[in-house]
């Protein structure tokens, strides 16, 4: 009898997932970005319940009791950010789907232990980041411990003076595609901090809880991530400039 009742609930769940084709265009960003210490927006990250839907706290309470609708509500509230995090970290949709699924399964298995000591989203993101980093570890990608120096050749003195000359300024040259590609090339530890802070808008104190590191470490890793991105983007610009010069030479030779 319980199994049949579960199937009936599955039926309702299937129906609630019936797609409206034009829904796919709707997205929201939900960040509080800062430039030079000044907040540039104040879009709240946490969604509130609307039109009588369960609030997050109610959904957590009911989910701890096994309520199916509550599980789905929690998923609705958080899946977009978790999926975006996974996607940015691994760079392909199939793996991102698997990681999102695993993160939420771990969350729902452990939800009975959540006591509210930290923000729920922080807890979920910690789970998600751990799931992703474990996956990357299994793939034997070079993993960056947040407490380690990750750039053996990194200069500890002044800024690199052999790059970043005025002729390779990134201002006006960084497009979304190139930046995304550069982010994908970051070591996992740098990537996680960069995604959480610069893309998803988490503050350093939140990142410190998510990544189990200090606030100072979060800040220094973010700076290192940006410096590495700078190098990668400048390489891209140099490659593009080289290709353009070669193309121009090819055209000139053809007209000789």
């Amino acid at each position, binding site marked *: 009898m319980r199994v*049949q009742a579960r199937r009936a609930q599955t039926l309702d769940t299937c129906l609630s997932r019936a797609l409206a084709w034009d829904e796919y265009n709707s997205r929201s960003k939900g960040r509080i970005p800062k430039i030079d210490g000044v907040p540039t927006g104040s879009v709240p990250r946490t969604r509130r319940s609307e039109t009588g839907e369960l609030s997050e706290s109610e959904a957590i309470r009911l989910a701890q009791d096994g309520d199916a609708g509550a599980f789905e509500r929690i998923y609705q509230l958080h899946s977009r950010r978790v*999926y*975006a995090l996974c996607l940015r970290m691994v760079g392909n949709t199939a793996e991102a789907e698997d990681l999102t699924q695993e993160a939420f399964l771990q969350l729902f298995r452990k939800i009975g232990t959540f006591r509210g000591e930290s923000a729920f989203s922080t807890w979920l993101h910690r789970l998600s980041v751990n799931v992703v980093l474990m996956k990357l570890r299994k793939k034997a990608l070079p993993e960056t411990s947040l407490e380690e120096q990750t750039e053996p050749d990194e200069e500890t003195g002044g800024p690199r003076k052999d790059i970043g000359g005025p002729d390779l300024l990134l201002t006006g040259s960084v*497009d979304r595609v190139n930046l995304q590609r550069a982010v994908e090339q970051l070591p996992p530890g740098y990537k996680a901090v960069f995604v959480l802070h610069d893309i998803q808008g988490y503050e350093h104190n939140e990142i410190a809880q998510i990544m189990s590191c200090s606030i100072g470490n979060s800040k220094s890793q973010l700076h290192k991530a940006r410096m590495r991105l700078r190098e990668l983007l400048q390489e891209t610009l140099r490659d593009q400039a080289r290709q353009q010069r070669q193309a121009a030479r090819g055209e000139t030779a053809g007209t000789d």
Partner: protein
Amino acid sequence: MGEKARTTMLCHELEDIFSREPDSALPPSAAEHLETCTVCRALAADLKAIRLASLELPAEEDAPTRVWARIRLELEAEGLIREPRLEEERGSAANWFFFQRPAFAGAVLALLILAAGLVGVRRTRTGTNLAADLNPVSLPASDDQEASLTSTEAGIESLQQVDPQVQAVFKRDLALVDDAISKCEKSVREQPGNDLAREYLYDAYQQKAQLLAVAMDRGTLGGR
């Protein structure tokens, strides 16, 4: 007379500030340094350009609906979900489904074949084969679709003799999913190269198959 205090910041000191406080406003001494040091000025400009560009990357992305479907199934399998309702609909629907299973089984199988065909098109997609994949006829044949819909409709009509309420529920639910399929098919035909449209269509076929499978399960379990 004491030594004149050094007021000019050095380059490594500026980078140290960036490392400790990556997004805070720079102190006046750092601003002064930037006025005189082209290298550090370029560095500061590049870091700002990266931060601005990162705002264009979406903080959220829609996960495909199959992700939740898989999570849901796994939660059920692990017994983590409590199911409190809809038990009263079992009895009358059960006997009908017990006798009508072949019709629904056929519909489920047809839909799964349609979805698998769509997956096959997606997985063989390469740059060189893109022209072939863009051909609108790569959509599942409409006569297979018609077969699945016909058997589904026949099944629902028969249900009316058993329990009108249950029939109404299924009719409503199938209409929702069929509407989604219809919209997605239209989009795929109009935009053959649109991967997202195909993905939504694939998901919609899967959902209809799941819907019918759930209905079959209910009938199977109730009939025992």
